[in-house]
């Protein structure tokens, strides 16, 4: 299947193979290196899934709230998605988000998973195969959900 994936990651060189495997599967991938850019892309384009790293900077010209934890701007992106709205544009608040992160702090992780809701939380380093499977499962799930809600 075809889908649009937003890959939010500041260490782009390190995740190139993740992007490659997705591209090989026929997905189109766009990369955002900071939170600001990610939100801008969410505004300008439509995505079916977001792969998100938590540890990154806010970015230039950001009008995101300043109360973000240092180098945890990824949380802001997740928050924005779950709000379902970016400025005047509506977006899918239940868009699948796969977190790919090195953060191991339990409290943070709990907050992210339970409060904000992620589809999957993968700890770096993760196997390529596991990553690919997770993404595909998530896309499949969301497709099913959408189909079911359409029926009702």
């Amino acid at each position, binding site marked *: 299947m075809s889908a649009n994936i937003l890959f939010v990651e500041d*260490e782009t*060189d*390190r*995740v*190139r*193979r*993740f992007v*490659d*495997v997705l591209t090989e599967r026929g997905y189109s991938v766009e990369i955002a290196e900071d939170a600001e850019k990610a939100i801008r892309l969410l505004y300008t384009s439509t995505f079916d899934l977001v792969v998100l790293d938590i540890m990154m900077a806010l970015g230039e010209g950001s009008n995101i709230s300043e109360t973000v934890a240092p180098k945890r701007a990824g949380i802001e992106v997740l928050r924005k998605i779950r709000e379902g709205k970016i400025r005047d544009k509506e977006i899918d608040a239940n868009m699948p988000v796969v977190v790919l992160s*090195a953060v*191991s*702090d*339990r*409290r943070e*992780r*709990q907050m992210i998973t339970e409060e904000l809701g992620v589809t999957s*939380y993968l*700890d*770096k*380093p*993760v*196997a*390529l*195969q596991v990553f690919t499977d997770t993404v595909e499962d998530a896309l499949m799930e969301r497709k099913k959900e959408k189909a079911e809600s359409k029926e009702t």
Partner: protein
Amino acid sequence: MEANKHKIKPYRISKLTDVIDEPILRMILKGFIQEHGVPLNILDKRGDSYYRINSVQAKQNYCNLCAYFRSFPEGEKLCQKCDADKANELLELREPQWYFCHLGLVDFVFPIEIEGQVVAAFFSGQRRLKRHDDKVKARARELVSQVKGLSFRKMKHFLREMHPVTEEDIKRLIGDFSRLMNHISKLASERYSAQKKLQEELFFLELLSYFVKSYSMDLSPLWNAMEIASERIKEFCGMSYVLFFVSKQGLHSELSCKASNGELPRGFTSRLLLDFRSLDSFDDDKPIVLDSTADRESIFPTSRDMGVEKYLKDQICLIPIHLRSNLNACLVLGMTNYDQGNILNPNRRSFLKKIAQLIGGQMQSAYSEVLEQELKIETDANIEKLEKANRAREEFIAEMTHQLKGPAQSIRAESEYLTMHCKKKYQHDKVIMDSANKTIEEVDILNHQMENASFITTMDKQDVYYRLTQFLITPIIKECIKRFTSVAKRRLIDIVAEFEDSSLELFGDKEKMSIAFNNLLDNAVKYSHRGKKIKIKAYQRGQSIIVEIGGFGLGIPDDDIDKIFEKYYRGRLKDRRRFIPGTGIGLTVAKEIIEAHDGAIAVESRPAGGEWHDPDKLKAGESFLTTFTVALTIK
């Protein structure tokens, strides 16, 4: 601190009434006089003279001659002088004797001796020895001119009245009296010992009172106490001065405090050094007496240039004080114009030693309190340093692990992609395939170490996140085994797995359980002997899943068995034939994970020859069979 004003006198005895009260003495004498009907006089010392203890009773038994003669004041004086002179002589003679008194009568004198000192003289007698009559008459004629009113005729008359005695009589009388004297001497000695003991005890109590128990770090209260105590020791022991030295580095010591003595020159006390090195061979029982100038100069090296030569002529006695079995302090007692042999008297020696022990004991407790405080402060500081170092180390490990995740991720992804790519295009190129697979394998091992490190640092802070799912145990274990293929092959170890049932399921954190089994297998492989089997069994028993991992190898000694799960514990195998690498955290992590899953882990290590009957096991004693048993509750 005020000096104790109540003076406790030393145990010197100078007169009999020091030890026997006058009333008691009089009673004894009265009894004797009444029984034997003899005159009896006691002369007790008072400074340089004697004084009579009794007079009235004695006179009752005087012979008429004496009674008459002594009724004249001058006569009395002469008789008393005669007695006193004789008593003085006794200081040298110390033997009971008979003699002719100045009148010419036979008198007896008995010395009462206590502790080698004559303290009193007993006089009796007034006997007439016939052959001496002429002398008596001649003397009486002489005295007529000296004593006003004296009648020669009466004197002669009284003399003739007297019943004469023979020399045997005299000897017998001396014998009788001697028994009395012994009795009194004995009584006096006993009383003396008791009193001496009491005085000494009181003195020690007094000395003790100078030591105040609340010492601060600088010990100055102790030295203040010593200063005052030295003063008292000086008085009690009859010394000219008492000096007190405390060794600071065990070598030289400056004078810490002194007992004042007007005779010492001003500079004497503050600059005098005591060389402790030469005192090392002190015989504990013998205070050292410095007799020669050479001796003194070696012990007091600065004494020569201080103009204190005259003090070097003193008899100096050193009493060592031992603290914690080291020679740390010394009392120096000096006698100016000393009495030869005074210091070396055994009683005095033991008394001084006792003083030294008392002071030593006090200093010991003072020092140990101070040392304890110092030690505690040092220990607390050390503990804090250690904890700080520990925290720093753990933070470093946590941070480092975190930093390694990025590169590890990248290497892994690249390798995996490479393998995927190679499978399509280069599946026949062994080199590329091998290399790619090898890289993934090694990254996995790297990952494994990092996971342990990451876990151990978050474990203490209760920061571990468990992602709970339902999963199968068997594939996890199989993956673990696969990971160790290279290592096992390298050491000719065969890993064999027995799964009773392939549907053993658990509710828990799959990744964490994988880490736990990984660590257990890692351990088994590391400690296994070359060419041995490692056996894994997994089965269900009741509501639990049991996993056993056993291997043949170095084994775990009994005293180590409880410690192997401790953080950083690496074992103490004494006969390690090769160095076994490891961080000591593998088992700690495994145990923590298992217990977090409501499970338990046990270990057993015994000489091989157990239930598995492994065909390629060596003779019993050469290998230990170590089995780890994990029990997990099925939720």
